[in-house]
């Protein structure tokens, strides 16, 4: 497909925005590799990370192609500064304990799964292909992480207390899941992607159902945290990028 301006620029930016969510969250999950609380989860978390990194790779490659300015997917992933990333604040949150990690993953997957499902009806064939893959992958993330949220919330005194703390700390970042930036709104108007804002009801239902079984309260959000979609990030992203980008910054263009 080819697109005329201003749709083209908005679509490239949107693909990079979505790619950033998947790259940064995938990187966060990959930090668990070798550190998970049990061997079984040591495989599950990197499995989910690989799903997300695969999506990021697809989205960046497509963005680079559409843009046609000679950038590669690696240039987009590794050679931008923090202010140029458009990922949600939620996905850059540090891993914290296992409760934080599975809750963050549930929050993200429960919003993105219906988003990709609805995007299957949009007009760009290439993006539909990515969506078809993501829908299945994220369904397993919701199941896996939802089961853990229930087990921890309905577990021991300590696990329940940690789960409540994770909700308290992460819930304020969830509003941004439903706040598309200007480029995304142009793509929604053009019928290229589903409207993230329209997925809120499905997300609410998924979370409420799981929280009920987990004996968790869905908190009111007094001061929602947002800014990632405009490139305004927390300190956490800089530290993450210094690790993520180290190799390409130190040895530009290196491959192995």
């Amino acid at each position, binding site marked *: 497909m080819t697109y005329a301006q201003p749709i083209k620029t908005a679509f490239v930016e949107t693909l990079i925005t979505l790619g950033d969510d998947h790259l940064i969250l995938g990187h966060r999950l990959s930090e668990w590799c070798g550190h998970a609380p049990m061997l079984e989860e040591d495989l599950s978390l990197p499995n989910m990370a690989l799903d997300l990194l695969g999506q990021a790779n697809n989205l960046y490659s497509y963005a680079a192609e559409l843009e046609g300015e000679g950038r590669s997917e690696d240039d987009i992933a590794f050679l931008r500064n923090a202010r140029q990333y458009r990922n949600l604040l939620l996905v850059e949150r540090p891993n914290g304990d296992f409760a934080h990690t599975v809750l963050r993953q549930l929050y993200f997957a429960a919003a993105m799964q219906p988003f990709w499902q609805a995007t299957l009806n949009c007009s760009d064939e290439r993006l539909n292909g990515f969506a078809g893959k993501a829908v299945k992958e994220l369904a397993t993330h919701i199941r896996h992480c939802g089961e*853990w949220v229930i087990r921890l919330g309905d577990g021991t005194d300590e696990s329940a207390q940690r789960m409540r703390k994770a909700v308290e700390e992460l819930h304020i970042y969830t509003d941004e899941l439903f706040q598309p930036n200007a480029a995304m709104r142009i793509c929604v108007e053009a019928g290229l992607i589903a409207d993230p804002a329209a997925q809120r009801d499905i997300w609410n239902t998924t979370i409420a159902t799981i929280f009920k079984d987990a004996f968790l309260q869905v908190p009111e959000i007094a001061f929602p945290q947002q800014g990632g979609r405009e490139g305004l990030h927390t300190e956490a992203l800089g530290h993450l990028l210094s690790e993520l980008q180290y190799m390409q910054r130190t040895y530009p263009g290196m491959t192995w």
Partner: protein
Amino acid sequence: MATHLTPLWEVFIRSRNGLNHKHVGSLHAADGDLALQSARDVYTRREEGNSIWVVRSEQILASDPDKAAETFEPAADKVYRHPSFYDIPDDVGHM
């Protein structure tokens, strides 16, 4: 993680429709749902199968290896139990 909270489960995978589930290994999990989840991540990452069974290891009863001789050896000299004394017509093909 304390193993009394995450007992051992045996995992069986069916590699293709029409084949049997085969034992592939074991894992620790708090309950059946999580055991199935983990089995998917541990044992089907390379497209090993399309169906998973899990069962608590303690639910499996095993024959006594000390009684292997009396259990299995009586079958050794009963070759007539193998269906190998029939002439199979060529048209039947592979059985």
